[in-house]
């Protein structure tokens, strides 16, 4: 009966998945936005109001403002992981012609919530012969860096919103990478403290793998930093944003912005003719070509100068070839990063540390209850964070893919809506909640990040697991040489274009 009634294509299931994702993303987005607003604007405003001339209370209000990014991330991570687990299971089910969990709540909406409740109520078992301190510490060390490491990205994707400006670190991406290298300590620690052979082997594998694949990963990121000329994630995202580039010449703060642009790019723009000669804002109309995956504004500078007829024929051909090579290199760098990231966070096809078929469950074999839940949470959070890093480094952070002239009306409409909402709130006596630039940036960043997350799910559905020797060969004999070659290539190309 069911087969007879079934549609030829699986539109029903896909629609269910999309609906589920949209609702969940709305929840995530709304919750984080609301919390940031409450913590960053409403509470300090109320305190300020009540404080009058009390300096201590004003300071308290400021401190609460400073805590906003941390609280926003702390709200974001559990809700986001809740959705990601569900998305992974449902998405994987789609790819493998199954239905996935669809029982708890409408369409399995609350499945992960139920799982989490189950895990929280389970007994915390300390295996015999384990090292209790290390055993408890391991999940925390595994999880905590993902909270702290993600913070600078918050500033990057919200175009350096003033509430998140505090986390705009000059070391930016280096900080994020350093933080994301810590979790492997937790894995090794948990594997060793479990007093279990499988766990120990899982932990050792994880360490070997993470250390091997961190090299190409970091080299890929460093190459992009070299191309862009800064380590600061906010600046990296800013440079790829067509709207920001458009603002370089016709906004009130144009001079300031241009100075900022010059300070980042100035020294690295040796090749003549310079883009400054025809105005940097001419890059804005290239839209997504400004993203680093297409060679960043090096490539669009070339296009703009070519269109302006600034090149001789030979120079145009020569620089065109260089630009082509740069695009290829950038694509390879992105692929290199994604591969390394996949290995770093132990996802299929690099999930040797937790290979179910070989090591039971690897380093978390002995974990149960809330400690296992933390491991689980951290795994998915790490996936999200590496995706966010990729988005910021290669896919333009919170920028829209459209040319600035096309996107400007959208932004205006958005600004109108935001203004209206803020007016309503002002009537009640509350601070503004929406801001067009931040809203657009956050939405685009989430969309792109989830695109990468879904891609990771697709990869998980496709590729089989590496063998440990293949893994090491691939890492040391293929990826590291490739990343070194790319580092060298991009260094030269950057000056040639």
């Amino acid at each position: 009966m069911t087969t007879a009634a079934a549609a030829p294509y699986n539109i029903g299931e896909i629609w269910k998945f999309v609906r589920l994702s949209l609702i969940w993303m709305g929840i995530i987005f709304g919750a984080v936005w609301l919390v940031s607003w409450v913590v960053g604007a409403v509470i300090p405003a109320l305190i300020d109001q009540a404080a009058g001339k009390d300096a201590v209370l004003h300071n308290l209000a400021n401190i609460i403002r400073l805590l906003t990014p941390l609280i926003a991330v702390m709200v974001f991570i559990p809700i986001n992981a809740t959705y990601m687990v569900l998305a992974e299971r449902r998405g994987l089910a789609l790819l493998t012609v199954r239905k996935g969990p669809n029982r708890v709540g409408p369409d399995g909406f609350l499945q992960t919530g139920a799982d989490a409740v189950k895990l929280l109520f389970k007994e915390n078992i300390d295996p015999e012969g384990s090292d209790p301190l290390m055993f408890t510490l391991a999940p925390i060390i595994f999880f905590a860096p993902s909270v702290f490491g993600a913070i600078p990205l918050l500033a990057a994707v919200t175009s350096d919103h003033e509430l998140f400006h505090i986390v705009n670190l000059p070391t930016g991406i280096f900080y994020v990478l350093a933080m994301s290298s810590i979790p492997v300590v937790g894995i090794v620690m948990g594997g060793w403290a479990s007093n279990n052979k499988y766990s120990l082997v899982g932990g050792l594998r994880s360490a070997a793998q993470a250390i091997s694949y961190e090299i190409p990963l970091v080299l890929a990121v460093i190459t992009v930093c070299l191309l862009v000329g800064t380590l600061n994630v906010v600046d990296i995202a800013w440079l790829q944003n067509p709207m920001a580039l458009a603002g370089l010449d016709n906004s009130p703060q144009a001079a300031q912005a241009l100075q900022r642009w010059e300070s980042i790019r100035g020294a690295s723009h040796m090749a003549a003719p310079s883009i400054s000669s025809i105005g940097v804002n001419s890059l804005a109309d290239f839209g997504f070509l400004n993203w680093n995956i297409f060679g960043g504004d090096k490539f669009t500078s070339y296009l703009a100068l070519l269109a302006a007829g600034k090149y001789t024929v030979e120079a145009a051909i020569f620089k065109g070839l260089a630009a082509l090579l740069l695009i290829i290199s950038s694509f390879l760098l992105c692929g290199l990063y994604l591969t390394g990231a996949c290995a770093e966070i132990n996802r299929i096809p690099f999930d040797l540390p937790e290979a179910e078929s070989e090591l039971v469950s690897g380093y978390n074999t002995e974990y149960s209850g809330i400690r296992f839940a933390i491991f689980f949470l951290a795994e998915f959070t790490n996936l999200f964070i590496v995706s966010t890093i990729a988005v910021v480094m290669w896919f333009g952070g919170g920028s829209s893919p459209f040319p600035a002239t096309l996107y400007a009306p959208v932004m205006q409409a958005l600004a109108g809506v935001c203004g209206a909402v803020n007016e309503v709130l002002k009537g009640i006596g509350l601070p503004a909640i929406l801001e067009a630039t931040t809203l657009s940036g956050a939405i685009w960043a989430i969309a792109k990040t989830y695109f990468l997350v879904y891609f990771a799910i697709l990869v998980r559905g496709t590729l089989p697991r590496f063998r440990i020797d293949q893994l090491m060969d691939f890492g040391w004999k293929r990826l590291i040489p490739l990343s070194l070659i790319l580092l060298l290539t991009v260094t030269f190309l950057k000056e040639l274009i």
Partner: protein
Amino acid sequence: MFALVGRSIESLRQVARGLGTVLKHAAREPITKEFPDTMPQLAGHFRGRLALAVNPQTGDHLCISCLQCERVCPDKCIQITSHKSPETNKPELINFKIDHGLCMFCGLCTEVCPTNCIINTNDFEMADYSRESLVYDLKKLTLTQDESAHYYSKKELPMPKPKPKPAAKPAAGAAAAKPAADKPAGKPEAKAEAKPEAKPESAEAKPAAAAPEAKAAEESAAKPAETQAKAEDSAAKAIETQAKTVETATKAEETAAKSGETQQKAEEVLKAAEASTKTEESSEKPEEKTREIDLGRVPAKSDEAAETKAAEEPKKEGEQ
């Protein structure tokens, strides 16, 4: 170097192809069956819980207590309690127990059942809280008339003939003999009721060997008893008495034709056993046998053969 680049590009292409293939599968109809909500579409020959069918048309219980299933069961999970009806002088069912905890659903019992009474239903949800509750008794096993009709049509089983005796025998009984007449009258109405009084006499009347054999139906049925009574009995009985192998073969082939008949046949085997109490020997066998084998082999004739037999029966018994 170039070879390496070529291989890398090739491998990337292959990975991309794999990703594409997997992505395409997202558009496929899921093969998941949401079991408790939508029941699986099971084939008629699915071997699920065992049950006893009744005649879908009349609602008569089809079991003739032949004990074939009990004997063939590899797990010995079937336990039949029956006794010899005093009126009809045939075995009658008292209780039928199947231990589904032991059953391995091989379906052998359904193969041997001459009346297609015991069948495998499509029900497989038998989880229970204790082993004892897995032992199903007659009441639990017997299907309703509607269920029986459902499974008979689903399994494409031939409809059992409405019991011949209620139809044929009253007519015949009026015409002819005495002992034959009260049997059919007693039998269709209630198997258990009539028995107690009738039982003692029938037990004593029978020869020691004939009674159990007759009860155990075709294969083991007492040959001497049957053979002599063959002339009156059905064609099917003739087959069985003369060559069991032939008979089982034909049964397998022509289940359609026979199943209606087999029930009747078995009943008539019983009658034959009774008849044998009266007459010890008969000399007419050989010729008649061959004739009736032919009859039995022709599926189309089986129906009319049964009827003619039913008509003949009382007469011959009367003669004897």
